[in-house]
Structure formats: C-alpha cells, structure tokens
C-alpha cells in the first residue's frame, strides 16, 4: 500500500476489484441468449450499401491518425515545427539563450 498526499493506492485491491467486476460482467453476459450464432448479415459492416473493401485495404496508416487534432491545432504545430529547425547552430543558441534567461531569473529576484 502506497500512502499519497491525499489518500492511498493499493494495486492488489485494485486487481481484486477488477476481477470482481470481470466476474459480474461475465455473469451478466452469461444471462444472455445462448442460441445466438454470430453469423448472418448483422455482423458485417454497413457502408451505405457499398461493397466492403478488402481487409488489406482498410488499415489506417499512422500518418492519418489524429488528423483532426493536428488540423485544429494547426497554429500551435506550425509554430513548433518552425522552432524545431534541426540546425545545430540553433541548438546552441537556444542553450545560450536559456542560460541567459536563467541568469536574469536568478539575479532579478534578488533585486525585487
């Protein structure tokens, strides 16, 4: 058991709870109809009557995932991409710049 600031965390209790919930879910599932075969028209995807494409064609590649998120955050990402130039001189100037900022940060607090 791990004591945190506001309470505690015990993974063993959590796992027990997880198992109990799983058993309850299984019981509920077992109360369903036993004669359902899982075959027939209802298991197929319905794409407005269009023929379902081959399974090999439908894998969504990484570049297309979270397209909407990228689109809505376009402003943020274009700024970020601009900063990540990949130019080694810029890496050093960022380092020197941040050192200077820290310098101001530490000395200015004394003055105020």
């Amino acid at each position, binding site marked *: 058991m791990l004591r945190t600031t506001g309470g505690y*965390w015990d993974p063993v209790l959590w796992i027990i709870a997880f198992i109990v919930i799983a058993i309850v879910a299984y019981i509920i599932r077992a109360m369903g109809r036993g004669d359902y075969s899982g075959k027939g028209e209802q298991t197929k995807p319905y794409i407005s009557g269009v023929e379902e494409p081959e399974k090999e064609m439908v894998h969504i590649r990484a570049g297309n995932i979270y397209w909407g998120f990228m689109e809505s955050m376009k402003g943020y990402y274009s700024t970020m991409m601009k900063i990540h130039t990949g130019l080694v001189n810029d890496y050093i100037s960022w380092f020197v710049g941040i*050192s200077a900022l820290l310098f101001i940060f530490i000395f200015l607090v004394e003055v105020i």
Partner: protein
Amino acid sequence: MNTDWLLQHSPALIIALPLLAAFLMPVVDRISRKARNVFAIIVLIVEEILVLFLAYDVFGGNPHIYTMGAANPLTTVPAQAAVPIRIVLEVDAMGIFMAMISATVCLAAGIYSLAFIEEEKGKGKYYTLLLLILVGMLGMELTGDMFNLFVFLEVLTIACTALIAYRSNTGDAVEGAFKFLIISSIAALFVLFAIALLYAQYDLLNMAALASAIQYSNLDKIALVLLVAAFAMKCGSVPMHFWTPDAYSVAPASITAILVAASQASLYALFRVCFSLYGVTLNLSTIGGALIIFGLLSMFVGVTMALPQKDIKRLMAYHAISQTGYMLLGVGVGLYLLAKPEFSTYGIKAMEGGIFHIINHAMYKGLLFLTSGAIFYRLKTRNLNEMGGLGHSMKWTAIFFIIGALAIAGIPPFNGFASKLLIYEAAYKVSPILSIIAMLVSILTLASFVKVFHSAFMGPKIYDVEEVPKSMLAGMAVLTFVIILFGLFPGWVVGNIVHPAAQALADQAAYIQAVIGG
C-alpha cells in the same frame, strides 16, 4: 572472500570492474564470438549483483564513503590537511538508487544486444563502448567530487557519441552523433567553468566540503546558472531538448535505452547540485520555480510534438522528454518547498513521486525502445506508415509493447500510475494547474501510444515475419519483470527504496556530515 571487505571496497569496484572489462573486451573479442558475448554478459551480471549488494547495505541506513588512494578508505581528510583533497566516492541512498537503474538497464540492453547487433560490424568495440557508458553513468552517480563528475560526464559523452554513430553507414546516424557531441561538449565546458568558479572561491572540489563552505555569493550564482543550464540540457528538458530526438532516433535501439539512463544520470547531477551542493543556501523558491517551469514545458511540448511523429523512435524520444518533465516537476516542487514547513507533509511526497518516476521511466521507456528495436530488426524501417499487422506474428513483442505503453500512460495497476499519482496529488497542493497539465499530458501520452500500437501491431497481416530471437525477448523480459514488480508493490518500493533516496537528497546536513564530520 570476506563480505565486509567486499562491501567496503564495492564503491570503487563498481566503477573499476566495467572500466577494466571494457579495455579487456578487445582482447577477449580476439578469442571468439562466443567468448565475447559470455564475457560481456557475465560482467554486466556481476556488476548488477555488486550494485544490489551495496544497495542493500546503503538502504539499510549506512551511506558509504570511499577515499581513492588512501590507506584507509574511510579517512576522507588526510592528517596533514584540513579539507578533503583526494577523490572521495560518496554513495548515499540517492546515488545507489541511480546506480541500480543504470546497471539494470545496461544488463537488459546487453542481453538484448546479443542477437540485435549480430549482423553488424565492430561488435567487440560495441561492447567496449557499452561498458564505458556504464562506467560514465556509475561514476557520475557515485562520485562525491565535482571534477570527477566532469570527467565521468565526458567519458559518458564520448562513449555515447561513438555508439550513436554506430550505424555510420547511414548519414542520419553520423548527423545525430555530431549534434549530440557538440551540444554535450559545450554543456560539459559550462560545467567545467562552473567548477572552476567554485574552486576559485573555496579552493575545494569535494562536494560535501563545498556544500559546507558555500556562501551563495554572486560568483556562486553564476556557477549555479551554468550548472543548472548545462545539466538541464543534458537531461533533455524543453526548450533545450532538440538534440534528444535526433540522437535517440538514430542510435541502435539497445543504445537508446541506455541513453535514457544516461540522460537521467545528468538529471541526477542536476538534483545533486541543487540539493546537496547549494541546498538551503539557495534562494529556494526561484530555482525550484525554474525547475517547475522546465518540467511543465517539457511535459507539454514533448507530448504534443510526439503526436504527429512518423518515426517510431523519434516519437518515443519526444515521450522521453515529456516524462523527464514529470521528474523535474516532482522534484522541482520538492525544491520549491524545501526548508518550508510544508516540506515534511507534501514536499517530500512530491520528491518521492519524481524520484520513483525516474526508475519507472528508465524501465518502461527502455522497454519501449527495445520493442521499437525489435520492430526495426524485422522490418528494417522506423517509419510508422510502413508498419502494420505485426501483432499476428510478433506476439511477445506486442505484449511487451502493451505493458510498456500502459505503464508510460499511467494506467493502473502499472508502475507509471503510482509515481504519477504521487506527483499529481502533491503538485495539486502547490497549484491545481500543475496537476491539470500533468494529467492532460498523461492522456495525450496514451493517445499517441494508441496510435503506435494501432499502426504497428494492429490491422491485417502485411509482413510475413517471425518473432525476434530469444535473447532480445529476454532483454525485454528483464525490464517487464521490474515494471510489473514495481506496479504490484509500489508501497514497498517507495517505503524502502524511494523514500530513503528522497530523504538522502533533501538532507544536505547528512551529506556533509558523512564526509567531513566523521
């Protein structure tokens, strides 16, 4: 062999063993391929055992001191002098905690490398450099001397650079290595300059002696700025993180896992400088605040930059930055509250969270990089767009990846959740906004690993590949074992390992006392 003798000399042995083995490696390499592999693994296992053996004693409440070159290793201050002159290794709970991380990650990566680099050239040199990285990390973590810290930092830099450029037949690897080298060496020069500034004032190089003498004068402040900036960059905190994805993505995956631990050695040096060297003389709230800001920026920028990445290792490298942010936040909150009454209630909890996160992160991010290496081993590509359907054939890799991904996203009951929970709750007491950002970042982390899992392992079977060789699976299994162990027993781990480490870091007086007082 007498165990007392071994225990007393183990701090020096821990550093000396891989150093000697590293330079023996080219000789052993001449004998046969098998001899080299066996030798490397035996050295790494013995090293791990030595570290755990010493750790058992240190966590039992005995910080170890080892004076190099003295007749009796415990006499830190020679009879003719008033201050420590020799190099002193000071092994307290925090130092040995970090050494455990380094040794474990190197062991897993070493086992993994047996098959992983089988088809490459220069394997003897690979193991030599791997052991040298281990020397650099352990040296940084166990030393109690500022200049020694610098030397080991440079050993680490040179060995890491050579291994990042290991696949030098591609331009990318050389470019990444060059960027890493130039950035690291300028940081190391800043560190050396800071050490010279401190030496100019106090004529001391020993950390504990310096800590007892330090006045926080203007020159000390300059030295502090240089040290904090240099180590913050070496650990890859935003906005000085640019080298991290470049270097991590091009290195062989086993080396990337070690590079994570190497960055954490720099993180350790940062904490050591802030807590043990400057400690309560600092205008605490400012530098603690700076660490919190670094942490917040690292978390947010790291994870948002990870989302659109198409290179699997580059994506994970950005996550490494983001996770470093959690450690900086946790320990930064602790530093912010140090010497305030709140410290004993939730300041120490925040530090425990941050320090617990260091070991968790080394384990699961090491594991994730190793799985990315397994994918690379079979597909010879790092591009996520070209992957798909690997779950059909690489089942074990997929399982290891899921465990690593759930752990990094902080899903209970894995270890990432426990450390993040400690950080959330303690940071909430300082300011709710810190916790909100930390949780948001955790969600985005999960989102981006869902992306990786989907595009690499799910979908129809595209590639007809086999599971990776057994030694690679064994390397991943070592780290998975630690993740699950830490996930199931976080209370024991925090109580017996993490809390002493946090206490050792926070208690500057004990750190000084161990060298000068006794």
